[in-house]
């Protein structure tokens, strides 16, 4: 059906014009002076505050309606108001990632002629969860509604929720097993799902028939649409107050103001120049069931980043040298890359109000085509793109922090985000019905340290600064698993003068279900995907899962014998306490279903440390041990602390004299073990030349050099290798994944 609508005529042309004006003037929509602000700065601020307030209260409306613990309990949503061209003017708090991803969605519809077909009319509702159109991953489902004033399109209201079930090849939303788009779940591709302010019945039926837990998705859909209508009302009320022409003018000035603010902040907080960083991510799937023979079973990605801070404050981040996309679920689209950048920047420099797409305009991402950051096949999967996004933007935070440090803003230095694995499940619920859910307690990992204090324990994730693990009693309503423990994971933050925030571990016993499929994702168990700063250590790599099938927990309980509630400090508690089929599983947990009485553990990740661990105040270490944040042996080995007394009778204290002596000795040993950089370099160079690496490392370099001439050139120059040096393909890829 083709509809024509005079109200949106010329929308595509307008978008193109706006882009040309930006390119020509360097200012959003060609706005070179902020006339509304200059005329009345207080009114300018007041109007923006009203719009933002509209977004904040819309988000609260949506949280009331939602049925999903992800939205109601841990706030996984965001709401925003856009210009007709799809640029964000004002946004709520929440998952800030999606401000520009929704913008991409709106622009995609405009560029694809939606004004003609299917038409953009008052009362229409559009939805999308296709990352190549504009979102991060399938569970991030966004809804937008056009805002018309009389017969003119004056903007859009949009909201996005992260769904806990997406109907993919495995239960949950972040479908780790997807190796192509076709296993990720239910796709809504920039679809008109509602007319006349009502969601279409046939769309609801489609959701009901293609999802394991349709109530989450459908009520979230209603929640988002209600939020959009609320924002639409606020905009129309404001237009009543100030007039439509003034609204159109000032709303664009907000974005230009946002762009200028971002540039000013960068100039204020950092030192211009080139910053470089590198992080890694490794994935182990060899021998796991369900993986198709398309990709590498075990692989390692290098994530190199170059950040140029220009004199005007513009930040340009270049991912040249990144690995090619692969047949796994961790690829990312440019929309997702935007999202990661946006959410990181809002936490560091755009937190004070005028947060909108202006900030995005003041930055630039260089995403080489064909890499995981910008795949050249739209068949590839992006279901767990956060696995690579989080390490990448953690490295970005550390680069920014070097800038803050150089400029003297010590209190802003933040070692930042880490990748933290997620658990999802499905099968038969405790109510005897099919179910599927992503468990969002992962929204409360440890953060990296700061330059002035320890990182946040169990209270930070990069993708949503409003971290929340939710109540056990709410999660247990929706899953046939009972917590045996949810406890701080000692030493899970990287050591340092200020340690990284610790994470926690959950241990469950399956309850009242004959079949629970547990799938976990985003594991990097062999390489550090985070780092410390200024001498701080990285946080440990991902923990392995420990499982006891057919456990004797019930017999032990009947006999009142001690039970294990976590893996314990030495990781051996489950083996010591329970009989049954013990399993230690590295990487994502994708195995046969579990059943009542089986036990499962899952750990989240801590953040990197800051500063030399030998400089850590011994009193803080003692306090950590008492609170269970750290072990005594960790204090001794890593921080050079000597203790007196014992934890058991609460007499433990620091032996300051011995500690001082030990630390002196350790420093002297460090010096003795040091070698000149050139000596180290020469030895490493031989290894590099011979390709004397683990197979995954060799593959990693080879792939990056094949894909990026620039990376190859830099690599050869750095290691002083001859022109044309390459790592030839030695073996044929084994298509059987063996």
């Amino acid at each position, binding site marked *: 059906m083709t509809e024509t609508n005079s109200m949106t005529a010329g929308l595509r042309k307008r978008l193109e014009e706006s882009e040309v004006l930006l390119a020509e003037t360097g200012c959003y929509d060609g706005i070179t002076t902020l006339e509304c602000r200059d005329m009345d700065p207080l009114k300018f601020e007041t109007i923006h505050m009203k719009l933002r307030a509209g977004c904040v209260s819309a988000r609260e409306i949506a949280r009331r309606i939602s049925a999903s613990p992800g939205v109601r309990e841990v706030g996984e949503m965001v709401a925003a108001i856009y210009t007709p061209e799809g640029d964000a003017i004002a946004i709520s708090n929440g998952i800030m990632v999606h401000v520009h991803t929704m913008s991409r969605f709106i622009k995609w519809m405009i560029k694809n002629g939606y004004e003609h077909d299917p038409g953009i009319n008052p009362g229409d509702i559009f939805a999308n969860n296709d990352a190549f159109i504009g979102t991060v991953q399938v569970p991030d489902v966004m809804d937008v509604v056009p805002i018309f004033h009389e017969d003119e399109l004056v903007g859009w209201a949009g909201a996005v929720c992260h769904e806990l079930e997406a109907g993919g090849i495995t239960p949950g939303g972040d479908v780790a097993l997807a190796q192509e788009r076709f296993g990720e779940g239910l796709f809504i591709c920039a679809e008109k799902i509602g007319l006349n302010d009502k969601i279409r019945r046939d769309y609801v039926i489609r959701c009901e028939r293609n999802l394991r837990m349709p109530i989450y998705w459908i009520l979230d859909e209603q929640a988002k649409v209600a939020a959009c209508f609320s924002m639409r009302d606020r905009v129309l009320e404001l237009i009543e107050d100030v007039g439509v022409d003034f609204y159109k003018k000032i709303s664009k000035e907000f974005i230009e103001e946002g762009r200028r603010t971002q540039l000013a902040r960068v100039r204020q907080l950092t030192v211009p120049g080139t910053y470089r960083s590198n992080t890694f991510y490794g994935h182990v799937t060899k021998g796991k069931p369900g993986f198709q023979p398309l990709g590498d079973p075990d692989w390692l990605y290098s994530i190199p980043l170059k950040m140029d801070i220009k004199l005007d404050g513009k930040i340009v981040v270049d991912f040249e040298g990144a690995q090619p996309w692969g047949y796994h679920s961790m690829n990312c689209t440019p929309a997702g890359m935007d999202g990661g950048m946006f959410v990181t920047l809002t936490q560091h420099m755009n937190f004070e109000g005028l947060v909108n797409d202006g900030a995005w305009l003041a930055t630039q991402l260089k995403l080489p085509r064909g890499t995981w950051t910008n795949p050249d096949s739209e068949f590839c999967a992006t279901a767990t793109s956060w696995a690579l996004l989080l390490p990448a933007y953690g490295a970005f935070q550390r680069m920014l922090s070097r800038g803050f440090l150089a400029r003297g803003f010590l209190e802003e230095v933040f070692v930042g985000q880490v990748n933290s694995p997620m658990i999802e499940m499905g099968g038969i619920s405790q109510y005897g019905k099919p179910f599927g859910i992503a468990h969002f307690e992962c929204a409360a990992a440890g953060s990296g340290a700061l330059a002035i204090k320890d990182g946040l324990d169990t209270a930070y994730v990069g993708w949503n600064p409003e971290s929340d693990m939710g109540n056990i009693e709410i999660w*247990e309503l929706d899953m046939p698993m009972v917590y045996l423990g949810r*406890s701080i994971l000692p030493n899970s933050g990287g050591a340092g003068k200020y340690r990284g925030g610790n994470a926690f571990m959950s241990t469950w016993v399956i309850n009242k279900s004959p079949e629970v499929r547990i799938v976990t994702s985003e594991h990097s168990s062999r390489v550090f995907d985070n780092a410390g700063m200024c001498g701080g250590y990285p946080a440990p790599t991902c923990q392995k899962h420990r499982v006891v099938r057919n456990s004797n927990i019930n017999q032990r309980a009947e006999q009142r014998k001690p*039970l294990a*509630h976590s893996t314990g400090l030495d990781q051996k508690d489950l083996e010591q306490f329970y009989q049954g089929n013990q399993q230690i599983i590295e990487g994502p947990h994708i195995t046969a279903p579990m059943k009542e009485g089986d036990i499962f553990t899952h750990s989240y990740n801590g953040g990197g440390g800051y500063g030399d661990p030998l400089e850590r105040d011994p009193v803080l270490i003692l306090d950590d041990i008492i609170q*269970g944040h750290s072990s005594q042996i960790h204090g001794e080995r890593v921080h050079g602390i000597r203790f007196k007394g014992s934890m058991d009778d609460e007499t433990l204290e620091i032996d300051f004299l011995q500690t001082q002596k030990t630390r002196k000795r350790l420093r002297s040993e460090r010096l003795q073990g040091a070698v000149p950089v050139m000596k180290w370099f020469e030895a490493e160079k031989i290894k590099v030349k011979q390709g004397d690496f683990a197979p995954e490392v060799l593959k990693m370099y080879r792939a990056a050099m094949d894909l990026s001439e620039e990376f190859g050139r830099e690599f050869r120059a750095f290691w002083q290798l001859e022109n044309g040096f390459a790592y030839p393909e030695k073996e044929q890829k084994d298509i059987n994944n063996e």
Partner: protein
Amino acid sequence: MKTARPVVAGIDAGGTMTDTILVDEFGTFTIGKAATTPQLESIGFLESAIEASDYRGIAIEDMFASVEVVLYTGTGMLNVLLSRSGRNIGLITNKGIEDMVLMGRGLQSWGDYSYADRLHAVTHHHPPPLVTRRNTHGVTGRMDHMGDEIIPLYEHEVEQAVNTLLDKEVEVICICFLFSQVNPSHEILAEGIARTILTRREAKTELLSSHQVRPVIREQSRLNSLLIEAYATGGGRKQLKSIEKVARENGYRYGVQTLQSFGGLTSINHPNLHETMVSGPIGGVLGARYISQIIENDSLVVSDLGGTSFDMGIISKGQIRIDQEPLIGRFKLNLPLIAMDTIGAGAGMHVKVDPLTKKVSLGPESAGSEPGPICFDKGNLVPTICDCNAILGRLNPDYFLGGKVKLNVDLAYEKFKETCADVLEVDNVYDVAEGMINMLDSEAGVALRRMLSAQGIHPSEYTLLSYGGSGPLHLGGYSRGIGFKDIITFQFAAAFSAFGCTTADFQKRFSRSVHLDIPLEAPFMELQETVLTINSIWGDLKSRALEQMVSEGHTADQIGFQPFLLMRYTGQLEDVEVYSPIDTINSVNELNRVIETFRNIYKNINRSVSDYGQTSVSVMEMGMIASVEKIKPRLKKSKLGKSKPEERAYKGLREVYFNSKWEKTQLWEMDEILPGNEIRGPAIIEHPATTLVIHPGDEVFMNEWSMLHYRHQE
């Protein structure tokens, strides 16, 4: 008027001052004020009541013999929580989740932050826990959400935990297990074991269980309610009992009432006292609702600045904001509460300069009323904001509490110079004192902005009410630049919370957690069953309510009942409170009427698109509110007179320090200011109980209801 019989005595004990408001049968009122006596609050209570009776010209015994309601509220318990000066407590919980006291869901590290700080992650941090990790003991045992025992309770572990906690001499042992609100048997068993040990060891330690204190889902919030009940309310109940004793000794015939967090009056024997912990500040919001009807603006922001804390609240379009899961002192609770935000900031706060770092800080400690600020000359030598006000001439040294307390300004100056100005190496002591006051004003102003921003509210449509003993003193400073539509304070600002409490009615709210799913096309018989269940529960709740109300002296014919339900679409996580349109449900049709009411309320709150009509609905909680109306105070309306105040209101000139210079400042007597009068700053309007500072260029106007409008210079 003086012959009218007083019927209500409302007493609000703040951290510093205790205010009494006496309301007579015609609704007119008088106010008394005395220093709060935290060690034994009944002393301050009586003094304040005596003063109010004096103003009315009657003896205290006659007053108590006459009044039908004595209503006592205060912030004492809240201050204990904020200043972490509560009892030493121990916790027994499920083994494996002990770290919950440190993790606080993650959310407690940012929960009450502003929009900006929520995003700015480097500012987040956890609040210090109320129970130490060492005093938290896990015992093996688990119930699931259906109330089925998954792992039996290990009784020997309970014994061990109790003995260890007793060895550590904790004052209260708290017991909180997962899903005890569904099946409390493990908590009951653990409590029994503990009680046996207590008896054997002859220990006086108190025992509290979460299913008794707050039997509501969400363990973090239930735990916090329990811990706060244990930590902060212990002394509170003793105080309330002593107050009742004093009132009765002086001729009062009934039980003393206090205010619950949702706004209803209740007896001081209320079992869970933490539900009344923030009753004082709530009084302000109730009072504001009353004022909003007079000033014809139903959108208000309230601000209460006392000696130790700054409390803020919002009424939007006549609706008092209720938090079902509020944060109190940064802890998440599941307690219906008239929403208030609180920060530790008040005129009694210590001001300090660290000699080593020269870092200036305000609080968190406060001088309280005993020994009070330095200028009270009762032994305190740490300067406070109040001392700064005295040094700068903003307080009248001979008229504090109407002259009852003489302020020793020289001593305050000397000590402030020594501990602050000299340490900072600044010669001009007055500049430093003014800087301290500006810091407090700015802290309060930022807190107001933060609350508005977190609620997504724009101040230009809201009237700010300022009250509390120190509200008018700092109002000009903390409201500056925010852009409120109007700013109002009162002659009785110091007793506004007490005034507000007297506008409340007697109310009891009884409720019970249930889980009734009502499928869309349920068979008739099933619906009949549901109807019977609902009526039976309401019947029980009504009998309990009636019994308690009658036991508190009300007659059955006075009591109004309002049944309510917390309902949701099945599968949702948030309830809608539905006041049932009918008292009992007699048919399936009437049940459908209740469901229709839910759907309409749901649609109104959440818009029509959100109506997922094809889904069944669930009732999660049923309740009964029993109310008895009570006489309320009335404000007097007068004609507006001339703008110039009467000669008798003028008290002369005093040098007052504003903006780094001494200004000749007019002094006025607040009780002599009349409707229509306008006063331009710099000026100070004095009242025995408060001082209104009008900054240079600002103006104050008194309206026909004798409210004082504060206008900032354009």
